[in-house]
């Protein structure tokens, strides 16, 4: 209706379109074609806005207006100083600063048998055959964040775990934005877990507090038959940052996949998770904890596609909202006609600490099979007054009583993280968030 007064492109869109235009022509090949197609799609569609169904609650065109240049590489010293999350834990750490792997800070020696880790830049340069799988998992609908990532990311990781390999020590990819100028970084990774292998993949995100940088990451996970993959994400971007993440999963037969996302950072964060269950009898769980305050906006959007029979999917998301913050949970489980005996259960719970906080819960089921057990639920409310009274009647001050109850609330989800080191780290991050509330 007011199309004539709205500029066709926001400054941010204009900057991205010019960045896409200045991309070097990478020549022929499938990946180059994919890159060009993604760029074209973005030029046509721009950033998603509230009239795009999947982005209804996260009007990115509006939330991401400022034009920022593409990030330039960080110095090793700055990257080192900035990457603090999950340090010290016994994890194999790889640092990715401003979208590029920093070899000097990455523990790439003495890889366990069956584990191989290459940078995406190297894999692209050498034309590694494994890249035949990059871009192989395609969401049902056009996703602007993913399209930008596909077009603009030039580094990231390519990790393969050989069939049957049991890799005990988790790999931790520490993403950090380091620099003084707000810029946009893009990182793309591919993780292939072979049949029967066992692997734990962690990633963390952080950056300077006051800087309005943008981090766009996308990772594709190919989970082989009877493989077991745990993914743990810790998103603690700086308070002015924009974090856009896309996680893509293809899950094989009798596989186990558990993901956990802990999100307490960024001014605006959106995580889109697409999972296709393409082998029968697998078990997947996508869980998360979101803790937000001030004017933060954090969106968790899940799309779980049951295409084969006998799979079990579980989602449990806990949101804690203080001040004027906003959290969005959109979860869609699709059960195709062939996916008989699907057992799917999705739950999103929110605890509102701030009077002006807003939670948007949109769980959905779309079922085409007739013999399934599926359910979803969503709750949203303040801390139970009776519980608070009980704790306070024993002398525990209000803030501390609230902290204990919030910890219990998110603890129910964090408890689901299998790896001890990572689970304890997340409990500690939740405690830290509560302590910072004062």
């Amino acid at each position, binding site marked *: 209706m007011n199309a004539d007064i709205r500029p066709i492109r926001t400054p941010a869109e204009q900057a991205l379109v010019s960045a896409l235009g200045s991309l070097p022509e990478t020549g022929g090949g499938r990946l180059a074609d994919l890159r060009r197609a993604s760029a074209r799609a973005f030029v046509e569609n721009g950033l998603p806005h509230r009239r795009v169904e999947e982005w209804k609650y996260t009007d990115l065109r509006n939330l991401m207006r400022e034009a920022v240049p593409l990030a330039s590489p960080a110095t090793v010293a700055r990257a080192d100083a900035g990457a603090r999350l999950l340090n010290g834990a016994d994890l194999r750490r790889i640092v990715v600063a401003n979208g590029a792997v920093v070899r000097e800070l990455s523990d790439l020696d003495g890889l366990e048998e069956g584990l191989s880790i290459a940078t995406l830049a190297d894999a692209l340069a050498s034309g590694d055959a494994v890249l035949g799988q990059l871009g192989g998992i395609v969401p049902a609908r056009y996703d602007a964040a993913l399209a930008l990532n596909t077009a603009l990311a030039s580094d990231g990781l390519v990790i393969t775990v050989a069939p049957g390999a049991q890799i005990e020590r988790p790999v931790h990819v520490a993403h950090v934005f380091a620099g003084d100028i707000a810029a946009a970084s893009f990182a793309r990774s591919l993780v292939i877990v072979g049949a029967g292998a066992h692997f734990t993949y962690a990633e963390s995100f952080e950056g300077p507090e006051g800087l309005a940088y943008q981090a766009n990451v996308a990772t594709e996970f190919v989970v082989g038959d009877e493989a077991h993959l745990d993914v743990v994400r810790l998103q603690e971007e700086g308070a002015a940052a924009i974090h856009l993440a896309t996680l893509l999963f293809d899950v094989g037969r009798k596989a186990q996949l558990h993901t956990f996302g802990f999100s307490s950072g960024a001014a605006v964060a959106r995580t889109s998770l697409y999972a296709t269950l393409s082998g029968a009898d697998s078990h997947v769980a996508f869980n998360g904890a979101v803790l937000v305050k001030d004017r933060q906006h954090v969106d968790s959007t899940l799309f779980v596609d049951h295409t084969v029979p006998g799979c079990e999917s579980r989602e449990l998301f806990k949101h804690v909202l203080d001040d004027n913050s906003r959290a969005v949970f959109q979860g869609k489980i699709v059960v195709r006609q062939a996916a008989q005996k699907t057992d799917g259960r999705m739950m999103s719970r929110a605890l509102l600490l701030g009077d002006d906080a807003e939670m948007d819960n949109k769980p959905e089921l779309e079922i085409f099979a007739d013999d399934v057990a599926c359910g979803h639920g969503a709750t949203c409310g303040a801390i139970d007054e009776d519980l608070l009274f009980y704790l*306070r009647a024993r002398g*525990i*001050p209000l803030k501390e009583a609230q902290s*204990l109850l919030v910890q219990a609330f998110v603890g129910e989800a964090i408890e689901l993280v299998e790896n001890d080191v990572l689970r304890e780290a997340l409990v500690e991050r939740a405690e830290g968030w509560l302590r910072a509330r004062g």
Partner: protein
Amino acid sequence: MAMLEIDNLHAKIDGDEGKEILKGLSLKVNPGEVHAIMGPNGSGKSTLSYILAGKEDYEVTDGSVTLDGEDLLEMEIDERAAKGVFLAFQYPIEVPGVATMTFLRAALNAQRKKRGEAEISTPDFLRLVKAKSGALGINPDMLKRGVNVGFSGGEKKRMEILQMAILEPKICILDETDSGLDIDALKVVSEGVNALRSPDRGMIVITHYQRLLNHIVPDFVHVMNKGRIVRSGGKELALELEANGYAEYQQDAA
């Protein structure tokens, strides 16, 4: 001045226009005294205990409550606890996800902190809990669970008395601590309460049954009806109530 002085207390449900629950209740508790309050269902006994503990669902419309001369009604809930008010709940609630030991320690340390005392050390705390829970026949496994989670009715009541024993309050208010206890548990819990009787501690024991008062022998017995104390006497009053019921008081008050 008595340790706890309740004078002409009037209270209603917060926000509710008509319903007055306490209608001019007065009671004085001196250190060392045990007062039993008996009275028909709905007479306002639990309401009185909640108001003393600071529950925000009620509005005091008239009267006063002081603890050692200080205005209790002005204090925050946790401040009252730190000053020594303890309510053993009629219906203790479950607090899933908060470990019992974490809760006990947070409560004890918060109270000590507010009184300007140092935090208790871990070994001292463990010793304290072990000694007190052992005396109350509390299974160590229960302490590993969330607060009251999955406890039986009787176990919840024991847990209340354990909290009381650890926190060592000045004024203990026991709201129907005997309900839900089997005969042996009643004895154990009563012994736990008696162990806390001391010349510096006052107690208000709310109960429907004379049986409890055989174990915890009160100095005074009060009959509460329709929001006030309508008769007070010695421990023999409980026996009289057991025999005759509340009919005569209900007629009086009507």
